[in-house]
């Protein structure tokens, strides 16, 4: 029954799209339309979220199923909410609700609301149906619908050339990903065309076929999720959209892609072979480190956040890869731990990445700048935004007691169980992936010191930053809500882990031990003597000892304070240009990692003594992945198109002979084949 209610919600969202067109094109109605559409989206997504939560807790034993007479006539459209779908519906609608609340305020600043408003509810609806779809046809149609609506939102600010290019690259990569998924479902369904997931689940593909499906799924779902090297579109497209949509794309849509991966690999494909996890782990490890290194080199705030999504997808894939390995080797408890870690990170990342994109949106609104080199000192002008953005930065850098740390901690605990895996490939790969994970966690902290420090701290670098105004209350409410969620999920993770139990149970057979009953609300993945963590106590301890120190010092020693000019070793310079910039902050890291990963080169131009010309320092970075994978393909396609161009201007006789030759050739092939 739940699925029917959920479909009503989706229908309501779809109905909002034409209403939005009507409202936003009405003369002087744009402002009202913004409030109405986003308000309605907020209500619907909240309802859908409640439905999803209810199905996760109450109805997870018996999935709720419905078949509608839509789509392929002999198939119909199957929809189903099981534990996995319910969890991802929670993620989608939580992100959707937060984005809608944020947009009630943020959307008022939109120049052309008629380009955003109609697609926004449709996009939300599309993400919901992808998760609910229970046959390959509806899945692919809604997947493509999700791609197209998000594409429309990416190019909504089409006056900027770079946004158009972003939209173009996105469209190409999205079609490529869908093509891979189409092939993978085609292989799964077999020659008879059994597109319903139930039949696919019951049939067991051969090992070779399963391997092919795995690779196609890694490519297809991975291109949407942004795994390296298929990530190229993501840092272009995510920042190009309006900020609440960026938050949805980064925080939620990548998770829908992860859902697609889990659905196919853990659910439909049957029992895994041990080497599948090798593929997933290697992809995850490389994605995590490359994502954060790319992010460190950016000085565009939203692009930095988008690259950071790539890193977090890597972390999620590491969790999923470990789960696959444990599942294949018959260690269900360990698999449940690893899967919980991955899924918990899915939830956490959707929360703090949305929060950070909202913060970036608020900054963009207040200053008109995305470039961190033009910001600075915003903590004075936008204190509340700065505070919630700081919470998001701390959470994504995996600092205790916030939520990012818990999921990374669980992943580390899962890695520590993996020496028991019998296969040698994994014995070598898992420690290396562990090192990559540790490296990416440390680099993430560096990256967010840079992001927060350069944009919000220091002195304002431009008048726009110096005159910024605090953002509106709706946007702030959405950000405070997500920041609170970061803290709650960090200090009482037991409840969140327990909520994931039905999901892991349905995918690997067992779930992690019940956590909410452990004393003091600790989390104990395996046994207390082995490892335990208590976010609540750590939080209380830090809070208490900090307050005791503050209280004692102010009471017993001195509480006097005076303001003076900065010391700066005696040479303070009043010009804000003397501060560290985003690029200079990243310089040490660029020198350590960038010389190999990006072929970074610093070219210094010194004018001769006496000349008054300024000295210059230019930094050259090369995107080796683009150069190696994308540029040759683009070049080859361009070359082929150039060569085939002459085919456009043939006479009718030539066309006919072309068709005839093609027919003969095909018949020949068929004859030889048989």
């Amino acid at each position, binding site marked *: 029954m739940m699925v029917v209610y959920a479909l009503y919600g989706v229908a309501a969202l779809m109905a909002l799209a034409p209403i939005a067109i009507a409202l936003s094109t009405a003369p002087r109605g744009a402002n009202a339309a913004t409030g109405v559409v986003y308000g309605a989206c907020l209500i619907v997504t909240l309802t859908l979220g409640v439905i999803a939560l209810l199905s996760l807790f109450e109805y997870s034993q018996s999935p709720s199923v419905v078949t509608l007479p839509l789509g392929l006539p002999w198939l119909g459209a199957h929809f189903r909410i099981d534990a996995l779908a319910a969890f991802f519906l929670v993620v989608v609608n939580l992100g959707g609700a937060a984005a809608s609340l944020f947009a009630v305020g943020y959307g008022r600043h939109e120049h052309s609301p008629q380009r955003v408003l109609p697609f926004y509810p449709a996009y939300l609806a599309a993400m919901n149906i992808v998760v609910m779809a229970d046959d390959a046809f509806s899945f692919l149609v809604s997947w493509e619908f999700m791609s197209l609506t998000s594409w429309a939102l990416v190019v909504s600010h089409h006056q900027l050339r770079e946004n158009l290019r972003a939209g173009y690259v996105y469209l190409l990569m999205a079609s490529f990903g869908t093509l891979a998924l189409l092939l993978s479902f085609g292989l799964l369904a077999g020659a008879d065309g059994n597109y319903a997931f139930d039949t696919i689940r019951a049939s067991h593909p051969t090992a070779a076929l399963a391997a092919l499906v795995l690779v196609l799924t890694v490519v297809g779902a991975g291109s949407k999720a942004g795994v390296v090297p298929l990530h190229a579109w993501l840092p272009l497209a995510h920042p190009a959209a309006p900020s609440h949509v960026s938050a949805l794309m980064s925080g939620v849509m990548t998770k829908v892609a992860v859902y697609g991966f889990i659905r196919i690999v853990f659910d439909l494909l049957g029992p895994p072979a041990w080497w599948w996890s090798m593929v997933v782990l290697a992809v995850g490890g490389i994605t995590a480190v490359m994502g954060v290194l790319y992010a460190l080199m950016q000085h565009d705030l939203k692009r930095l956040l988008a690259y950071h999504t790539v890193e977090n997808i890597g972390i999620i894939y590491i969790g999923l890869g470990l789960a696959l390995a444990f599942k294949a080797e018959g260690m269900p408890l360990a698999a449940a731990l690893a899967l919980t870690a991955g899924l918990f990170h899915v939830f956490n990342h959707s929360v703090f990445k949305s929060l950070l994109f909202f913060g970036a949106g608020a900054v963009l609104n207040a200053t008109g700048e995305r470039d961190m080199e033009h910001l600075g*000192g915003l903590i004075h002008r936008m204190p509340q935004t700065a505070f919630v953005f*700081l919470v998001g930065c701390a959470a994504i850098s995996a600092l205790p007691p916030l939520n990012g740390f818990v999921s990374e901690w669980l992943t580390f605990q899962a890695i520590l169980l993996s020496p028991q895996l019998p296969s040698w490939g994994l014995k070598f790969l898992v420690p290396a992936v*562990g090192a990559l994970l540790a490296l990416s966690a440390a680099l993430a902290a560096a990256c967010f010191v840079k992001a927060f*420090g350069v944009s919000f701290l220091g002195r304002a670098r431009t008048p726009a930053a110096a005159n910024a105004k605090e953002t509106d209350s709706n946007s702030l409410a959405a950000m405070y809500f997500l920041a609170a969620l970061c803290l709650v999920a960090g200090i009482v993770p037991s409840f969140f882990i327990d909520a994931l139990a039905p999901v892991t149970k349905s995918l690997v057979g067992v779930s992690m031990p019940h956590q909410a009953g452990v004393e003091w609300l600790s989390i104990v993945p395996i046994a207390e003597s082995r490892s335990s963590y208590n976010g609540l106590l750590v939080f209380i301890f830090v809070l208490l000892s900090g307050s005791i120190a503050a209280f004692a010092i102010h009471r017993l020693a001195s509480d006097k304070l005076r303001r003076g000019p900065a*010391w700066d070793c005696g040479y303070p310079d009043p010009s804000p240009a*003397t501060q560290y910039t985003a690029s200079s902050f990243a310089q040490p890291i660029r020198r350590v990692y960038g010389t190999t990963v990006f072929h970074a080169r610093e070219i210094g131009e010194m004018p001769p003594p006496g000349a008054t010309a300024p000295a210059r320092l230019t930094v050259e970075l090369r995107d080796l992945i683009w150069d190696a994978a994308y540029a040759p393909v683009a070049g080859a396609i361009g070359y082929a198109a150039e060569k085939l161009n002459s085919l456009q201007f043939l006479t009718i006789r030539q066309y006919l002979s072309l068709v005839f030759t093609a027919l003969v050739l095909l018949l020949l092939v068929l004859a030889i084949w048989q």
Partner: protein
Amino acid sequence: MIRDFALQGLQMLVVLLLSPLLTGFVRKVKARLLRRQGPPLLQPYLDLIRLLRKDVVLAENASWLFRVTPYIVVAGTWVAASLVPTFASGLLFSWSADLIAIIALLGSARFFLALAGLDVGTSFGGIGSSREVMIASLAEPAMLMIVFTLALIAGSTQLSTMAAYMVSGEGGLRVSLGLALLALIIVAIAENARVPVDNPATHLELTMVHEAMVLEYSGRHLALIELSAALKLLLYISLVGCLFAPWGIAGPDSSLQALAVGVVIYIAKLALGGLLLAVFETAIAKMRVFRVPAFLGAALMLGLLATLLMFVSRSL
């Protein structure tokens, strides 16, 4: 229960009160090795009291974050240091954070300190912060690889369990333990901003990392930051002590006598650690900043190798 609380409280006090003494001791030994008289042993306490009494001079541009950071840093470091078994293991709250969480707590402290370095908007703060995060980006993964190795040997990331396992001698002597010890020492030197990575005594602009980051702090804020630096040094020596020389740590529910013995042995371990550190620092020259990655990269590789050995064979 009351006894457990008292012991946990005692641990918190012991680390807080001993840490300036350890710093003073290291300074004294270093001075004596250079044939200088050196400051009195208790000088760090006097410095702290002097700083605490002074007014804070805050840069005009400093935000609330700059003022809150010293308290966050000292709280994070203090809590982390109290969770490491010093004279007794299995304390009341020892299970609330394992070794990974302790490392992450120190990471939080550093995160805020690096932000504070950027807050005033001076170039020295920036240089300090950016170099500190560069060093941390190598030291932290190296530390995690060490944790992996030790956790795989002891079958736990819980420090009390690890210490108990190490003292039982079941682990025996292993190649990976040796590699992990070496890596841990390198990481400890880097994390505490000691020679050859950084120099805690310098105020020469081009050579400082940690000191540049906290350049704008004064008065009670500076006192707290100095105290947390001292606490961190004590934490790392205690960590090496409880993992690689776990003898003499009083177990849970031991008698008062055993606890007293534990305290004495702990102080002896700290003294030995401080002595070795001072000798090492005196014997070696500071590195250029961009030599540090190679130094820390070695620690990372050693840690990775040790972990790999644990994955390949249970006995290496």
